[in-house]
């Protein structure tokens, strides 16, 4: 009923006529539009056929990207750490090669192309499009280039191409800090602006090379060229030059870097040195290391698995990712917490009988000196690294107050250094234990945490950073590797933007002074644990030794008895800054399984300090001669005219 009345209201026929008239109009209009489209097609395919046909066939217009030159990397003295080396490589464009297997066979006869090259070539051939060039051999010798040039007519679509590839003249020395470039892979393609990487084969993979990829890479240019059937360029139509990437100047000093490697003398471990006044990283060494040049034009599987599977883990950057218990190097920070929070004063004393027990418990926590230190104030306790004093102090502070205070020094968390893959570590708190292990915090664990053992995990970079904060009495500069950049060809350096330094909310200047005095006592005091390194210094050094227990080795690792014994040795640690009252230099040393911090780690820091301040090292005559002949550059700011 409703429908009927609804229909009745409308003049059905009139409506139909109206809609049909519009439909006819739409049909005519469509025919008109498509007549236009067909006219367009006639113009393209008939009128301009010759033009487009020649574009497509005889002379293909190719747009060739002109990849920019990658920026160089220098140390603080202007010594080149990463450069671009011209090499010749043999490349072919699959679509332009008439008989691919035949060509490759003939080329193998003509030049030395080994199995590895062929395998890599096949792999790339599958990934690339038919019109993209694939490299058959890298780094041709001049003789090979000549031999190919004579026979070039036999190989359409194959060419010798001069390319710049990355080269690290210092080899292993900066492998971890600077990192390396490698071939662009699928993951890289997702994040880069692909337009800007046309023609670029390499991209920063680790370290400074990765972090500063945007600055180093530059902007791509292009040229429009006419090519003949074989794909050889006939003439250039138009070109837009590329803009090279920026050169980078680092805080790192090659002399300090070498000193650190020599001082470590083949031990596994790391040395990080910083300028506490600005956070600039002067040395950053992780041993063992590797040759970054291996990665540049694609590392062979054999080389790579050798590096990856080595039990010494050379690819692992210990400065950024190595987690070590800080051991007694944590004590200055715990002492500062005690003073600042009013738990102890400079004068308050604790008696060390060689052990400590929690009230109401019988378990004895041992001091490293089993016969005991006697009455200790903060100065003595630091100098002699008395564990009992710090057990008592940690107990009085409680884990959470200690955690909140130490956290200000970035211990157990990322420092924000300007290279990727930094790892945090751990500064334990009761909240952390509840959240991650669902367990209550035991008071005994507070004692262990107070001497830097137990759950504490810090990286060498964090230790150097914390030492710098201590040296600057609470001014925090984020650690930085890159100091300045420079546009290619221009003279003046542009300093990298630095964030404003933060000041820690610690009020009393006396507390800073007390802790620093106690650290000076470690090196210059009668009973200091590192007094042997301070004897001939013209100024005071503040430092702290540390020895971290190694709890055991992972179950899946296998060592023969001799290695096993070595791997169970304690880690040796040392932090220091100098001069104590006007600090210019802070350093952290970690020697894996080095035994004692005072015997193994402290002398390494001593050499770093001597090197930085150009102090005469205590060396034998021959060693002196050897160093003199090497004539290391002295650390000084970069001069603009180089």
């Amino acid at each position, binding site marked *: 009923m409703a429908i009927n009345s609804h229909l009745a209201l409308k003049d059905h026929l009139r409506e139909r006529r109206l*809609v049909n008239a519009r439909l006819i109009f739409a*049909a005519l209009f469509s025919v008109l539009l498509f007549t236009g489209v067909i006219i367009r097609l006639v113009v393209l395919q008939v009128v301009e056929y010759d033009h487009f046909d020649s574009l497509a066939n005889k002379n293909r217009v190719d747009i060739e990207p002109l990849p920019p030159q990658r920026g160089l990397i220098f140390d603080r003295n202007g010594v080149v750490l990463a450069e671009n080396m011209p090499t010749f490589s043999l490349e072919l464009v699959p679509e332009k090669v008439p008989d691919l297997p035949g060509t490759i066979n003939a080329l193998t006869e003509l030049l030395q192309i080994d199995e590895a090259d062929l395998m890599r070539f096949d792999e790339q051939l599958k990934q690339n499009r038919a019109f993209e060039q694939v490299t058959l051999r890298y780094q041709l010798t001049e003789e090979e280039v000549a031999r190919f040039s004579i026979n070039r007519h036999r190989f359409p679509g194959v060419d010798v191409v001069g390319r710049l590839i990355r080269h690290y003249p210092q080899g292993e020395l900066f492998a971890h800090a600077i990192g390396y470039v490698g071939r662009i892979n699928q993951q890289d393609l997702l994040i880069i602006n692909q337009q800007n990487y046309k023609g670029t084969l390499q991209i920063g993979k680790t370290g400074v090379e990765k972090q500063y990829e945007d600055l180093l890479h530059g902007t791509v240019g292009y040229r429009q060229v006419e090519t003949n059937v074989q794909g050889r360029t006939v003439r250039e139509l138009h070109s837009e030059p590329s803009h090279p990437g920026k050169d980078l100047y680092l805080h790192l000093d090659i002399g300090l870097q070498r000193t650190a490697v020599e001082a470590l003398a083949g031990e596994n471990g790391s040395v990080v040195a910083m300028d506490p006044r600005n956070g600039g990283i002067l040395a950053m060494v992780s041993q063992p290391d590797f040759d970054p040049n291996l990665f540049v034009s694609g590392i062979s599987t054999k080389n790579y698995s050798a590096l990856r599977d080595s039990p010494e883990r050379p690819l692992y950057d210990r400065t950024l990712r190595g987690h070590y218990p800080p051991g007694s190097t944590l004590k200055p920070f715990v002492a500062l917490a005690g003073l600042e929070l009013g738990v102890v004063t400079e004068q308050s004393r604790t008696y060390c009988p060689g052990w400590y027990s929690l009230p109401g418990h019988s378990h004895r926590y041992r001091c490293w000196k089993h016969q005991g230190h006697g009455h200790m104030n903060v100065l003595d306790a630091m100098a002699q690294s008395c564990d009992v004093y710090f057990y008592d102090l940690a107990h009085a502070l409680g884990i959470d107050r200690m955690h909140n205070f130490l956290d200000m020094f970035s211990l157990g968390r990322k420092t924000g250094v300007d290279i990727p893959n930094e790892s945090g570590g751990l500064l334990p708190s009761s909240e952390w234990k509840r959240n991650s292990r669902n367990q209550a915090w035991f008071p005994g664990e507070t004692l262990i945490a107070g001497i830097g053992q137990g759950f504490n995990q810090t990286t060498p970079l964090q230790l150097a950073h914390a030492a710098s904060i201590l040296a600057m009495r609470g001014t925090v500069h984020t650690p930085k590797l890159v100091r300045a950049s420079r546009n290619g060809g221009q003279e003046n350096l542009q300093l990298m933007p630095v964030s404003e330094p933060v000041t820690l909310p610690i009020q009393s200047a006396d507390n800073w002074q007390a802790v620093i005095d106690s650290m000076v006592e470690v090196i210059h005091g009668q009973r200091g644990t590192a007094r042997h390194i301070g004897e001939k210094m013209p100024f005071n050094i503040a430092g702290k030794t540390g020895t971290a227990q190694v709890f055991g080795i992972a179950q899946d690792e296998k060592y023969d008895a001799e290695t096993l014994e070595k791997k169970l040795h304690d880690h040796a640690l040392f932090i220091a800054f100098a001069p104590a009252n006007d600090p210019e230099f802070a350093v952290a040393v970690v020697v894996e399984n080095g035994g004692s911090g005072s015997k193994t780690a402290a002398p390494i820091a001593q050499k770093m300090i001597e090197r930085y301040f150009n102090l005469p090292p205590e060396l034998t005559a021959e060693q002196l001669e050897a160093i003199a002949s090497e004539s290391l550059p002295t650390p000084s700011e970069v001069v603009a005219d180089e």
Partner: protein
Amino acid sequence: MNELLSQPRRRHYRPLGYWLKNTHIDGLLMLGLLALLTVSMVVLYSSGGEDIGLSIRQAVRMSIAFVVLFIAAQIHPDRLRDLAYWTYGLGLLLLIAVLMFGDIGKGAQRWLELGFIRFQPSEIMKIAVPLLVAAYLSERPLAPSFMRIVAALVIIVIPTVLIAKQPDLGTAILIASSGLVVIFLAGISWKLIFSFVAILAAAAPLLWFNMHPYQQRRVLTFLNPENDPLGAGYHIIQSKIAIGSGGLSGRGWLQGTQSHLEFLPERSTDFIFAVIAEEFGLIGVVLLIMLYLLITARGLIIASQAQTSFGGLLAGSLAITFLVYVFVNIGMVTGLLPVVGVPLPLVSYGGTSMVTLLAGFGILMSIHTHRRMMSP
């Protein structure tokens, strides 16, 4: 006994037409669609580098789409009309959901992850918008009053803006045009049409400043492709070379150099028309265009024979929007229109739009085959 056995069994023989009618499938339309999909398989084999996998995957998607077509054809147009508001409302909710939690693919937020399936809500709107506008305008006698036209415009503008924001300019244009076509067919006066056009012309600069930079770049590239030869302009330059070098009769199937040497980008999807033009020449593409025009013509005939105004408006809009699709794609590939990213309907590789298009044709068939049953 023997006699009994040798006696022929009585069976109902029914003419083919009877079965066709009861399946609610329109034979002519079906023929056209199948011809088009055959073209698609043949061309995809060539554009995909003679990889039969691409054609097979397309065939699988086609089968799914035909199931959807078949289902859509069974639904009585009156039921569709009842569902118009609900479909539109659901579509709007999903569009908002996409803007809030949608997946981002190729720099745009178009997809909604439903656990088991990834899904583009803008596809629903391709049907829902013309459906609702047709249902709404046919509630009252045609031609619609000014206020009803304004209301219909609101129905169209909301999803269009939401989709343009994703941003998916191509789909937004198609959805807007599907709704506008209904208003046009419903008999809006010519005076009003010209006033709207005048207002739009005045508002064009405003639109320009609200575009995404990538959309502005596309328009600028369209005006002067040589501006950006490494980037967006490359598409148009290469596509024109491919089309032009096809000539009158083409290079022959599998012989297209531009597409096979991979000079031509997106050659299996948005730029597949250039492959056809290169390999089959002017003759091939004119035949293809004729096929599209014939399918649309059949749609328009169905619209003109529709039982109700609602059916006529909806059928007309679906048929004409299909042709708009074709026009926008070919215009884009031949350099007549900006590159907005619309596939060539039923030929380009890809499943989502094919399902929606065939659902639309299912509705067309339903409108046609349910006619007599509702006669008084």
